[in-house]
């Protein structure tokens, strides 16, 4: 309970069947901080997020959320602990309207506060307020992504896990999403971001982890990372 970090992963090994994906993953997320997970495709970034969420269960090691071992927690328990997840696939409910997609996620924060109500989400994404009564599947890709982030914020989280949220979006929409992520960070919500835009991650995140084959090969801030030219070239293609 003395651990000040919201989330820690200690020597975590996660498998998909026989496939060994995370091989001794270590991670620490401090309150109000922003952590980026970098690496090429298939290195274990999304699996790390899924392991935190309880979607993928670790076989070895320890995942800790707010001081509690969460290795066997179901995803709904993790979510109730204040961890919100924005998946790469968006997963909008097509049979619910935009308003219902947002309201279905609404809950008070762990401390009982309602910082992110419907009105505030609509202020953050004005485009959604024009589409409130439309079905979720009638939105463009960018609007769906905004809805997914808005839905996650409606849970009033302490931590936001963002998995490739700008993937496949038009540049102007990406900029909008990045500005929202910055706004979320300013609010003091701790974030874990997986994205291919290294430049943006270097600007926004306080700390970076470079993951190669399920292991952390670099851990440091933006200045330290930019000094690692060989690593940037070899593992991130920069």
């Amino acid at each position, binding site marked *: 309970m003395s651990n000040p970090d919201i989330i820690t992963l200690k020597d975590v090994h996660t498998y998909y069947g026989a496939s060994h994906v995370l091989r001794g993953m270590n991670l620490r997320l401090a309150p109000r901080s922003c952590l980026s997970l970098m690496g090429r495709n298939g290195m274990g970034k999304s699996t790390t997020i899924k392991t935190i969420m309880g*979607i993928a269960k670790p076989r070895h090691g320890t995942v800790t959320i707010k001081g509690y071992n969460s290795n066997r927690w179901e995803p709904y328990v993790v*979510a109730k602990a204040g961890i919100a997840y924005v998946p790469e696939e968006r997963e909008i*409910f097509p049979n619910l309207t935009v308003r219902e997609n947002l309201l279905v996620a609404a809950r008070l924060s762990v401390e009982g506060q309602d910082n992110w109500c419907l009105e505030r989400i609509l202020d953050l994404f004005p485009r959604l307020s024009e589409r409130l009564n439309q079905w979720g599947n009638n939105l463009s890709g960018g609007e769906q992504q905004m809805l997914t982030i808005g839905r996650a914020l409606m849970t009033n989280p302490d931590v936001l896990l963002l998995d490739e949220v700008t993937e496949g979006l038009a540049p102007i929409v990406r900029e909008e999403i990045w500005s929202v992520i910055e706004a979320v960070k300013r609010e003091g919500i701790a974030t874990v971001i997986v994205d291919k835009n290294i430049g943006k991650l270097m600007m926004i995140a306080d700390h970076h982890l470079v993951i190669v084959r399920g292991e952390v090969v670099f851990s440091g801030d933006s200045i330290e990372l930019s000094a690692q030219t060989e690593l940037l070239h070899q593992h991130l293609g920069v």
Partner: protein
Amino acid sequence: MTVIPSKFVIIVLCFFIAILIFVPFTGDKYWIKLVTRMMVLGMFAMSLDFIVGYTGLVSFGHAAFFGLAAYTLHLISPEETAVNLLWALPVCLLVSGTAAAIIGALSVRTRGIYFIMVTLAFAQMLFYFFHDSDIAGGSDGAFIYFKPVIVLGELTLMDLDGQNVLYFFSLVSLMFAYGFLLIILRSPFGRVIQGIKVNEHRMRALGYNTYIYKLVSFIIAGLIGGYAGFLFACIDGFVPPELLGWQESGLALVMVILGGIGTLFGPALGAVALLGVEELFRERHIFGQLSEHWQIMLGAFVIAVVLMLKNGIGGLILKIGDRLKGSVR
């Protein structure tokens, strides 16, 4: 899928209700009984649509609750006098609701084909329990000699033995069931189960223990199904074990498919269509010798509707409503 009925749907439903109100005034006992069966089976199908169309749980054992409530009414009805509806109905609902809680607690842990098989297995267990034991007439079924009544002191306020009384009670019950399920579907609980139907993993990642939500919706469907079973037992005053069997569950599924999965009002229209067409195909004056093989024609009708109407009769009505509104969803 839509929960809030559009103006066009409301107009269509009001039209049907107006016809239903008119039927008893024809004085034709055959038609009154037939339409009572349609309404009761429509209510049964509507309850199944609540879990199939909105929660995504395709149950093949829904008749268990329908038949259990019917048998409960038989078991609590004395042979010499009528039982009071004011406590008989709650007892029947309690039994079907408890059965739904027990069966649901075990079956909603499974998914897809396994859920279908587990619900089917439970219903068949109950079928054979009543079929092979002497508890309620065995394979011959059981009779309810006196239909339930509402008595206050010396005054009999309502007697379901009266054909018109049972008819209007069934009509009010059907409307109540529709309104009740509509309110649930428009509530936060309704939004959650509709989310579960599309993406259960996402709902879990949003912080919902989906097991509890699926179980509660299963129990609600069991309660409404039991309510329909109670009414069905009052129609003929006869309760055969077949009411619990897989054929009855299959019949309800056919009604849901005919009426339109996830339309709520549609399955009630599916029941009207299925029973109405069955009566039509049995008509010797129209179909002659072919009427003896009405099941073949009925099967062809079901296949034709499924192939031609993407989401059944309810889906067709919604589509017409959308066209009239000039908007395409």
